[in-house]
């Protein structure tokens, strides 16, 4: 039991910094996991620290809403790599992100297409316009309340954004 836990921890601890640098697209970004009490690793837990690009080391509480989201996504993708499930479902993870960070996260997901399927729920065009396909949900009024209806759009049939500029 302890063995697999330490394996998992060591694996993710190796991976977190590169994942955070990759998502932030900034070599100055740093992230690391450490065991609070190395003698008794399971006693005091695991701490996580991120240094946002261009900033100094400070407690995680100091991070802004958007910075916390990026730190969380880096940890999620690093942890996932230990036993990679074939697909991901992310429900409005872009809520606190500005357009620059939305672009970075969307590009990271696009870059992982080879080995990972991503299903995201989003209200922001800056995010969902980067997907391969859209699933549009709309509500039809029924007797017992709304009934969800579904439409699918394959975006790969249209040219990329750049060539749609007039």
């Amino acid at each position, binding site marked *: 039991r302890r063995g697999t*836990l330490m*394996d*998992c*921890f060591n694996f993710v601890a190796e991976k977190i910094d590169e994942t955070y640098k990759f998502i932030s697209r900034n070599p100055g970004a740093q992230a690391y996991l450490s065991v*609070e009490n190395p003698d008794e690793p*399971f006693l*005091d*837990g*695991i*701490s*996580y620290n991120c240094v946002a690009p261009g900033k100094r080391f400070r407690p*995680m*509480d100091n991070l802004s*809403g958007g910075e*916390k*989201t990026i*730190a*969380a*996504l880096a940890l*999620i993708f690093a*942890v*996932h790599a230990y*036993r*990679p*499930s*074939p*697909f991901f*479902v*992310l*429900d*409005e*993870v872009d*809520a606190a992100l500005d357009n620059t960070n939305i672009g970075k996260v969307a590009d990271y*997901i696009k870059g992982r*297409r080879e080995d990972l*399927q991503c*299903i*995201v*729920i*989003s*209200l922001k065009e800056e995010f*969902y316009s*980067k*997907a391969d*396909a*859209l*699933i*549009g*949900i*709309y*509500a039809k009024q*029924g007797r*017992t*309340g*709304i*009934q*969800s*209806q579904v439409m*699918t759009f394959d975006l*790969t049939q249209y040219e990329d954004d750049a060539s749609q500029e007039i």
Partner: protein
Amino acid sequence: GFLEYLEIEDFKSYKGKIKVGPFHKFTAIIGPNGSGKSNLMDAISFVLGEKSSNMRVSRVSQLIHGAPVGEPVANTARVSALIKMENEEGHLESIEFMRVIKDNSTHFYIDDCSVSAADYRSKLETFNIFINSKNFLVYQGKVEEIAMKNPKERMTMFEEIS
């Protein structure tokens, strides 16, 4: 492997039989507030064996369309997921996982054969789908707290994943 289609029947705000898909490598679910986007995610969690508390209900019978207003349209609801994966020879094979609610209990099927919850779960694990560890589902409003857990909570998270 990857998820290709989802079939939903009388689950939450989805009334009747609805086929959703095909899902691509990067698929976005869009639509107005309250239209049923998170319910679609709940359908995916449900078919993978998630417990009802993570689907915003206290009992599985509340997942049936109309149940929260006391007018369930049926006494069953069903979600099935078609997952495609490459076999040894590189051909694409598909396997259908299905979970059905009957009254307040749920039943599991793989390619239409009824199986036990344990067999269902271990078959999913061959695809690296571990519903307990939830390392691949991020529910609405929960992303920031993943970075802000305290050290002991984070240890528990690692225990579930390993």
